[in-house]
């Protein structure tokens, strides 16, 4: 069957057709090409207007028509791109082609209109489909931009929160330092039993506040990725005994039996951050006591495995308390979350302890595993792998440890000369109260500049330097004193940075400025005296 199309029908079905003669010159074009390519007029050679992409090479049109091969041509100028078939015609060849759009960005410039496509041509639908895709890509980009902005905002807010926490730590620790320090000094005076009980209440409340503050600061460090860990030898069993000592008293107070089983290898010396290990164990035991109303709490310490110098350590805490179900287990390591809301109301607490403990365990390369049956108690296990410590050097280190300055000053026949650099009158008073009767002579400077001016060769045995002060801060004053020592070849005076800034970055800043030791506020008689001894010992060791 032969179907013949008149010109109107041909234009309707193939608006972009081209008819060429045997010499490959254009005889006529469809209305679409006529509009878009005025240069493609009768008499012009096809190759003067189009690049013939298919078939490639020399074209034998007669053979090509017989083969029914596809045709692909591209305008030499402008974005016109056509593909179709070549069909025989009389007196020439008929190229039945359709517009191809391969680049949505260039669509507008192409000048193509819907009427350039026949209704039978699905190219238009493909173009619209590509438009939908382009729209989705544009939307995805917009979404990614929004997400990136939201992420940046969240990070900025998190950093602002960390900075806020650091600042608040200073603001809270300064008055807390005053309360705890003064009360500590008060406790060392003659008191009636009733007064002693009241003082003890203040001490306990202060310690609770300090612990809460430390938890919040620890959390901010974890979130900021600034959790610095010490690495020093310590005796595992001694550390655990230390950690549970106070807890045993609390268990006694609640009428709970308390057991500590130092299993095989527990007496090993290991290298790690003893403070953080004790903090985690103390937290686990504290929780066990908190959630146990009757029965017992047992702690076992064991070295489960040894691989070379690495010891696989397990500290397990078992209790006969309320336990928890699988759902509570999912939530218990989340920050600010406890088993359920009623737990907070019944037992109190911030809900930070386990989250911090888990973060600390992970930071130390370990983990906390938990199991429980509701109503039948819980089992928490801190698993850590720690390197075996050098026992000999540690014992040697202990025997080389800082002597009490009282021995030294009595041998020297004079008091220990302290330069206290502190802007806050209450804090000045706290230090004086604590060190009263300890064989010291305290000179006070109210800011860093005063300290730098007061500092003279061999004028002080130690400087207690506050970090944040008006006029000149402790970091700058320390740097100036160190510079002067270097210029004048003076023996370095021991400097302890005395500050409420408990963040690791502040400790590092103090060290970088030239401080020998960092004593964190709030001060207690023990922490101040030990801090001074540690500072003196640090300088002696270096010397």
């Amino acid at each position, binding site marked *: 069957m032969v179907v013949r199309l008149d010109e109107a029908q041909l234009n309707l079905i193939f608006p972009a057709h081209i008819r060429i003669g045997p010499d490959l010159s254009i005889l006529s074009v469809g209305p679409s090409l006529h509009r878009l390519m005025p240069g493609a007029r009768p008499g012009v050679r096809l190759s003067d207007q189009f690049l013939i992409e298919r078939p490639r090479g020399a074209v034998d049109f007669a053979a090509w028509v017989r083969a029914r091969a596809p045709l692909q041509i591209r305008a030499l100028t402008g974005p016109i791109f056509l593909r179709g078939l070549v069909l025989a015609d009389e007196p020439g060849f008929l190229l039945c082609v359709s517009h191809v759009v391969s680049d*949505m960005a260039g*669509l*507008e410039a192409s000048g*193509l*209109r*819907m*009427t350039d496509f026949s*209704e039978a041509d699905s190219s*238009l*639908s493909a*173009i*619209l*489909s590509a*438009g*939908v895709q*382009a*729209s*989705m890509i*544009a*939307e995805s980009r917009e979404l990614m931009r929004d997400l990136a902005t939201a992420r940046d905002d969240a990070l900025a807010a998190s950093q602002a929160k960390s900075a806020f926490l650091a600042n608040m730590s200073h603001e809270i620790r300064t008055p807390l330092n005053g309360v705890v320090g003064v009360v500590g000094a008060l406790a060392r005076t003659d008191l009636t039993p009733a007064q002693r009980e009241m003082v003890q209440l203040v001490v306990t409340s202060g310690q609770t506040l300090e612990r809460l503050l430390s938890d919040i600061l620890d959390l901010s460090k974890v979130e900021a990725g600034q959790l610095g860990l010490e690495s020093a030898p310590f005796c595992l069993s001694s550390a655990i005994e230390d950690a549970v000592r106070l807890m045993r008293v609390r268990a006694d107070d609640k009428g709970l039996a308390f057991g500590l089983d130092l299993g095989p290898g527990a007496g090993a010396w290991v290298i790690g951050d003893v403070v953080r290990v004790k903090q985690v164990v103390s937290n686990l035991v504290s929780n066990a006591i908190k959630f146990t109303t009757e029965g017992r709490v047992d702690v076992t310490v064991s070295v489960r495995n040894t691989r070379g110098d690495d010891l696989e350590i397990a500290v397990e805490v078992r209790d006969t308390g309320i336990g928890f179900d699988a759902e509570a287990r999912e939530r218990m390591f989340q920050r600010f979350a406890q088993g359920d809301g009623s737990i907070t109301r019944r037992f109190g607490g911030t809900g930070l302890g386990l989250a911090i403990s888990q973060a600390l365990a992970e930071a130390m390369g370990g983990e906390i595993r938990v199991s429980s049956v509701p109503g039948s108690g819980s089992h928490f296990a801190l698993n850590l792998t720690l390197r075996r410590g050098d026992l000999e050097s540690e014992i040697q280190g202990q025997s080389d440890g800082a002597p009490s300055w009282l021995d030294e000053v009595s041998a020297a026949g004079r008091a220990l000369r302290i330069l206290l650099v502190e802007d806050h009158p209450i804090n000045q008073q706290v230090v004086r109260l604590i060190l009263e009767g300890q064989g010291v002579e305290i000179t006070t400077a109210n800011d860093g500049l005063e300290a730098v001016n007061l500092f003279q060769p061999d004028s002080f045995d130690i400087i207690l330097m506050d970090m944040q002060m008006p006029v000149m801060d402790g970091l700058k004053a320390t740097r100036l004193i160190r510079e002067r020592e270097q210029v004048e070849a003076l023996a370095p005076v021991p400097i302890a940075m005395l500050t409420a800034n408990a963040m690791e970055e502040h400790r590092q800043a103090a060290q970088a400025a030239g401080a020998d030791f960092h004593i964190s506020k709030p001060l207690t008689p023990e922490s101040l005296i030990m801090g001074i001894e540690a500072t003196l010992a640090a300088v002696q060791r270096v010397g």
Partner: protein
Amino acid sequence: MYGMIHRAARDMVRSAGGDELWDRILLQSGLKDDEFVSALAYPDETTFRLIGAVAAEMNLSLEEALGQFGRYWITFAHASSYSPLMKMAGDDLFGFCENLDRMHASIKISLPDVDVPSFRVIETGDASIRIGYLSSRAGLEPFVIGLFEGLLDHFNQTGEVTCVGPIDQGIEFLIQIKG
């Protein structure tokens, strides 16, 4: 309807009253961010809830809100990545209206889940176009009027659009160009 409608509504509200107004509308409509993906189809009820909230918060009748939205739709589509496709539809109001149904038919091929309306040019005069509108949705005549008014603006024409009344299975609209 598809999410592009929701995005257009969001743009319109934000340009009129900022994020604060939009937040109130989101709250009232109960729509979430995942209901604003252009190429996804959402239940009509969701779209009507959104338009209802827009009307309530912008102190408009539902008809007024639909009319404003129709006009804004043209501006929004032209400013979007669909702009080249709008250009393809025609260089003047007459050509555009002639291709309106083809555009919607092609959209239906790209987004088969979307129920798109049909437009048919019944008659064109020197300064008027009669168009038949057929949709499975009822009550959107004010939106269609706004849409044609938006097209008049788009092609820098002034004129009047009226809803003539039912015709065949649909509704007839008349665009009269002035000046």
